[in-house]
């Protein structure tokens, strides 16, 4: 029982961080109807940012979020402005090639600079745990990562629901031409969405660093994971992506404990296929025409 509880809880905590990656992808998809195949690579950049800050400047990985978030926001916004905004009217294949190519450039550039060695950050608390009860304890850095994720998600939700700019992003996602007719500068909203999506991915990378390692090609696994999360939750739904992320975290964690760690990716895809079979529009998605 305590093993079950332990893996359930760490699944939820890790899943929360995955959710951040999924939310970024879903936001970008919602506003631009493109799937960002470079998404995992943006997360990887966040990981290396945290690695650099921690190794050379002694910045705590969790504190590094304060720099990684805005830096990745600017980087993503710039990518959108310089490259992706020009491609929004071209055919889907070209958009796919563009983001795939972008991902390759990012991962190969990082490999040139840092080689393909695994990089880790060292913290005093990497393996410290918090006792929840007599025989259930959770990883402290994972709990901190989850709390920061929750705060960022809540902030994002508030921004999208309550502010004029956030509402304009949602309006653009729901009807681009109607948004234009409201005086909304939709290419600016696209820049914002891609900047936010990148910032969320980079932040997730930063938050994972105390409990994991990174290497230049780590992105592709996470792009896939983000895609599964997004489809699970219903393309374009922020709440859905949050749920999807947590579900994936739990599936990974439970299958690693009860089957074997080699099976955790299989479990994710089995879950994915089941949802596609029984609720193809995703858990919270509405069927689109």
């Amino acid at each position: 029982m305590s093993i079950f509880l332990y893996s359930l809880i760490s699944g939820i905590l890790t899943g929360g961080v995955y959710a951040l990656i999924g939310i970024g992808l879903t936001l970008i998809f919602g506003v631009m109807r493109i799937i960002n195949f470079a998404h995992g690579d943006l997360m990887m950049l966040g990981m290396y940012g945290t690695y650099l800050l921690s190794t050379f400047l002694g910045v705590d990985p969790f504190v590094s979020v304060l720099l990684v978030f805005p830096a990745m926001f600017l980087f993503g916004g710039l990518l959108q402005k310089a490259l992706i905004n020009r491609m929004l009217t071209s055919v889907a294949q070209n958009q796919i090639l563009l983001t795939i190519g972008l991902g390759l450039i990012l991962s190969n550039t990082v490999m040139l600079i840092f080689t393909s060695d695994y990089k880790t950050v060292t913290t005093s608390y990497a393996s410290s745990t918090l006792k929840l009860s007599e025989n259930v304890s959770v990883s402290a850095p994972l709990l901190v990562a989850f709390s920061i994720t929750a705060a960022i998600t809540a902030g994002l939700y508030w921004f999208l629901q309550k502010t004029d700019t956030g509402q304009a992003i949602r309006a653009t996602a729901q009807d681009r031409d109607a948004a234009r007719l409201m005086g909304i500068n939709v290419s600016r909203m696209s820049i914002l969405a891609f900047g936010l999506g990148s910032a969320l991915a980079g932040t997730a990378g930063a938050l994972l660093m105390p409990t994991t390692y990174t290497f230049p090609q780590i992105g592709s696994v996470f792009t896939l994971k983000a895609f599964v999360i997004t489809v699970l939750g219903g393309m374009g739904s922020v709440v859905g992506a949050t749920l999807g992320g947590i579900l994936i975290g739990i599936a990974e964690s439970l299958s690693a404990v009860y089957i074997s760690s080699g099976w955790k990716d299989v479990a994710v895809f089995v879950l994915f296929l089941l949802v596609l079979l029984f609720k193809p529009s995703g858990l919270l998605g509405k069927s689109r025409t």
Partner: protein
Amino acid sequence: MLRIDKLNFSYGDMKVLWDVDLEVHPGEIVTVVGANGAGKSTTLKNISRLVKPDSGGITFEGVNLNRLQPHEVVGLGIVQVPEGRRIFPEMTVTENLRMGSYLKATRKFRESNFEWVFHLFPRLKEREKQLGGTMSGGEQQMLAIARGLMANPKLLLLDEPSLGLSPLFVKNIFQILTDINKEGVTILLVEQNVYQSLRISNRAYVMETGRVVLSGSGEELLNDEHVKKAFLGM
């Protein structure tokens, strides 16, 4: 106020507008009527810059629109209530209306504009929290017009606001358009409901297969033999 000069437009290889000339003066209600596919909506899309013309100029209060982005056109005071309502389905009535006054210049008047549109459409006030996508067709049309008004338009473009509405509702909408116009909003209306719209119009244009074939005062066109035969079934 608005002046369209020899507007030509094609969707890809298919030419749909030929040398369209059209003018709207301050304070007027001007109607464009014409059969399906005549190019009415396309003309409005050109004004709002959702599409770019092949040739021809559009000016508004002396400003050439040819270089502007759609959101900049809204900034000048040209607001379109598009065909098919196009309200934001996953947003509440209030949120939809807030988007109408998204631009900084109009945000200042948001509160008084809310009062104005709730006064014109009391039904919307009762439904403040309802999602746009779950409203009835007539309610969505009210919301679309109200959302347009939230932007303090100088010139309001309306594309078939009466489409799919019950007769009672249609009367209501035309009454409201007349009222809005009296409050100082100039209106360019595209309608298939030829009789009602010509009655409230100062002037009107008839379009056929991408060309303006007839124009005159609302009254003249109501009595025109061709209009009577083609649109009024007389």
